[in-house]
């Protein structure tokens, strides 16, 4: 199984190297869907030159990355491309092994429950087999490599860079991480934390949802030190404040910019709270509902964060979408997958079209672009809730049997209320 992974990595690195050298790189790095004010590489370069001049990079309103990033690239600026590629490849490898382990855990758990006769008798077709699970890690690695490498990494600090700074052990030795933990799934959770840390980490306020579940689940306190590196080095509160208070209203694919551009300054604080609460809001109920399934919980959380964070990019969306193969077995329970896929494809095509009409042609305006942003996010929300519902339904069927009958003997239906 290592050969296909190596092939994927080689292809991914080659494509990225080619992209970096093509004229496409410049084009992509200007796209508003790809770059966010928080993670734009251009801004990092600006921060670096400020640092070289002996000025605090945070003194302007341009640079919002973390100090670790700026120190890293202070030394590695000439090799930035290489660093991006390596971290990306490492993330793919880490995810590959993590998912492999996760599959083992799932399978072991399923076997245990089968032996304990916890499942209903007629659910044989819901039982997962090692055959169908075999290629999942590879698919995840593939999905992790490609969309990211096409868009995100050309312009952004890749989603995968920061975790390596924080927790080099995690991504480099995932199996070790798993085995050193008392509870294997929790060890994996730790790993995921490392990988998706950046998504949540950038608007630092959004880090909380990851903290919360880890505490709620009786999580190994070691993961807490992931967050300790926010030790005030320069004026670090900048990075935190930026994510929370949304001062930079450059359009992006999120929900914040338009709303706050339209609003009177006077109400802004109140609505910042209202908007930001979305990221945190679902954590506790979800944690309670999914306390048996931390990885699925993690997936839902990453998705929610990608939707509701203040400066999302396609990199964030691609990150949670890379996990879709893990939930392949939910496919038969998904209800609106066709419509929702269409919505998401349509929106991702209309983003550039409407952006062109608004900014270059001048014939449309921001309302057009925001309408698509809104549709895109509604599509994402529906997609995630579809996955959530499908997961719950599968669990229900597993314990209650696939062919339910109502009291009067007719076929019963599950209704989400």
């Amino acid at each position, binding site marked *: 199984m290592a050969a296909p992974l190596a092939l994927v990595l080689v292809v991914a690195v080659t494509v990225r190297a080619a992209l970096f050298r093509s004229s496409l790189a410049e084009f992509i790095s200007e796209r508003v869907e790809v770059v966010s004010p928080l993670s734009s590489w251009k801004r990092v370069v600006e921060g670096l030159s400020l640092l070289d001049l002996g000025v605090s990079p945070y003194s302007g309103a341009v640079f919002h990355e973390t100090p670790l990033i700026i120190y890293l690239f202070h030394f590695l600026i000439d090799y930035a491309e290489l660093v991006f590629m390596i971290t990306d490849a490492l993330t793919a490898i880490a995810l590959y092994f993590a998912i492999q382990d996760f599959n083992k855990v799932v399978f072991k758990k399923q076997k245990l429950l089968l032996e304990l006769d916890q499942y209903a008798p007629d659910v044989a077709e819901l039982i997962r087999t090692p055959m169908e699970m075999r290629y999942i890690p590879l698919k995840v690695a593939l999905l992790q490599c490609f969309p990211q490498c096409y868009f995100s990494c050309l312009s952004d600090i890749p989603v995968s860079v920061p975790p390596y700074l924080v927790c080099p052990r995690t991504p480099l030795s995932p199996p070790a991480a798993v085995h050193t933990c008392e509870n294997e799934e929790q060890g994996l959770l730790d790993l995921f934390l490392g990988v998706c840390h950046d998504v949540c980490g950038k608007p630092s306020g959004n880090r909380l949802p990851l903290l919360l579940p880890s505490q709620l689940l009786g999580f190994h306190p070691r993961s807490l030190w992931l967050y300790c590196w926010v030790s005030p080095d320069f004026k670090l509160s900048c990075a935190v404040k930026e994510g929370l208070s949304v001062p930079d209203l450059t359009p992006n694919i999120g929900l914040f910019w338009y709303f706050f551009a339209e609003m009177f300054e006077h109400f802004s604080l109140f609505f910042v709270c209202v908007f930001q609460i979305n990221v945190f809001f679902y954590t506790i109920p979800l944690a309670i509902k999914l306390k048996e399934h931390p990885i699925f919980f993690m997936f839902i959380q990453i998705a929610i964060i990608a939707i509701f964070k203040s400066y999302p990019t396609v990199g964030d969306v691609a990150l949670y979408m890379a996990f879709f193969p893990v939930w392949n077995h939910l496919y*038969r329970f998904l209800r609106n997958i066709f419509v929702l896929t269409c919505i998401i494809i349509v929106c991702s095509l209309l983003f550039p079209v409407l952006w*062109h009409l608004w900014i270059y*042609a*001048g*014939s449309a305006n921001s309302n057009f672009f925001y309408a698509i942003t809104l549709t895109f996010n509604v599509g994402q929300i529906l997609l995630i809730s579809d996955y959530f519902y499908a997961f719950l339904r599968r669990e229900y*069927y597993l314990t209650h049997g696939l062919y339910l009958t109502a009291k009067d003997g007719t076929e019963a*239906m599950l*209704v989400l209320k």
Partner: protein
Amino acid sequence: MGLLSDPVRRRALARLVLRLNAPLCVLSYVAGIAWFLALVFPPLTQRTYMSENAMGSTMVEEQFAGGDRARAFARDFAAHRKKSGALPVAWLERTMRSVGLEVYTQSFSRKLPFPDETHERYVLGEWGVPGPRAHLGGRGLGWVSPWRVSWGQEAQWEGKSLVGIGGLEKGGLQRPTTVTLRSPPPYCIQMVSGTNVYGILRAPRAASTESLVLTVPCGSDSTNSQAVGLLLALAAHFRGQIYWAKDIIFLVTEHDLLGTEAWLEAYHDVNVTGMQSSPLQGRAGAIQAAVALELSSDVVTSLDVAVEGLNGQLPNLDLLNLFQTFCQKGGLLCTLQGKLQPQDWTSLDGPLQGLQTLLLMVLRQASGRPHGSHGLFLRYRVEALTLRGINSFRQYKYDLVAVGKALEGMFRKLNHLLERLHQSFFLYLLPALSRFVSIGLYMPAAGFLLLVLGLKALELWMQLHEAEVGVEEPGGAPGPSVPLPPSQGVGLASLVAPLLISQAMGLALYVLPVLGQHVATQHFPVAEAEAVVLTLLAIYAAGLALPHNTHRPLSCRVVSTQAPDRGWMALKLVALIYLALQLGCIALTNFSLGFLLATTMVPAAALAKPHGPRTLYAALLVLTSPAATLLGSLFLWRELQEAPLSLAEGWQLFLAALAQGVLEHHTYGALLFPLLSLGLYPCWLLFWNVLFWK
């Protein structure tokens, strides 16, 4: 959301979509067409109104009285032009300076991808000596170019500056061995070079931060002299006024739109089309609005206004309103698409006449060509329109003073602008000069047409899904289900080949004609432009024969494992979504093009399937292919202009249109050609594949 999560209602909806699919599709298609036709009737079409406060009233006193001067300038200009055979740059400079402008020139050159045959950009005299340019309009395709240009020679020509000043030597060219000469010998080569002249009237009241442009494009023929005369006379008159708050640029460009493009690129310091030009010496701030003028007679019977720009972009409606109000004030007769506007909208005649105008506008906008040099300004977010003087057999005629007064009024009003024109509509359709339809009202027409594709796709998905998961899924309740086929991936894999092949055909269609023209001219007795067009048609036709044979080995494998219909259904599903996506995006940027293509392509796309009357479907598909749509549009266009085409003429026009389309993509960046070749043609091939699925 109840609709999405409540299984009972979902099941009802699914049943509705499945059972009533055909009637719903027909209904939706008819509704789309009907909606479009209804656009010309009063509740949907509204009166235009001026939104911009600064241009609210026409209370300016026009004082222009330089009709004689304009005519004198025009005569002089025509004489000098005839003498030098090119734009009389020195004379223009001298005259502009004498009326008190700051004068600059800009030289430019552009290598065309292949010779332009509808406008003879550059014509050499016999044996390559630059001689007087002859207008060869209307010749079209069908002549044989005697010069086989090899790359080495071209390089040599470029080095010697081909401007009609005489840099070319006889020895630099070799006489071709086989020359089929016709008289006059229409030698044309691909290098176009020329000079733009422009003069800036500095505003006494402001600091050159904003400007207006009056431009006259001069082609290779000797038309438009009166426009130059009027421009100079207006410049002289404007120079004497004290109220200007924006600089005014008077621009005379050579080679029509090529010159305009070169000037605009240099003015904004960008290079988007590979134009080589000298940098501009003088600038005058951000251009707020531009008016292009085309006049070829001393008197006019009416003024025609053109709004459609590059890629279907339109100027702000306020600019058109401004023109219209000044036409009304001066009693000038003005037309849109060459049609007078109907007076009576209450009876049926008015709307019907409006429909003609509307259709003409749709056709012109759909072509994506800049109809006048204003079309290129729009790309730089400069609101612009072209005014054309028409001299017909009508009795009452206006002289240049009347036209000049209207222009003076417009410029004085534009001078009042405090900010860019942005208040009024940018996306509209015009059934008459004083009536418009806004985007919110015309978009449903395209929406209904696209709904057909959506409904069909939904039906196919449900059928596919049912075959896959049994009856269980659409209702959401688990029934006795067939085991999940493990070969979902195979179904998808069978789609890859047709998709790739049709995309490759599209790419070939886009790249090969221009790349391969030299090979073609070496082996066949055709000129470059002919070679391009013929290669285009050949590849287009070859696409029909190619793909449907190649997917067979792949599809067989699918058939063996699954229901036989799955393969084509999946392909059709993908093709439907692909088409809907493309048409949706096109309709947003250029409604006319999107609507036109949707009207023709949607029925055939919805019907295509490998059963039933296949020949009928095939005929329908061919008739609605993008190229056939273009041919049909040409006939419709001439029909609406009341100048019907014969078949042979239509074919000639079609070939010329193809060549123009490719050329305009390369020279101005018009998007119609890449859209058709890289997007819609491959998509159409997919439906062709579906039809011949075995």
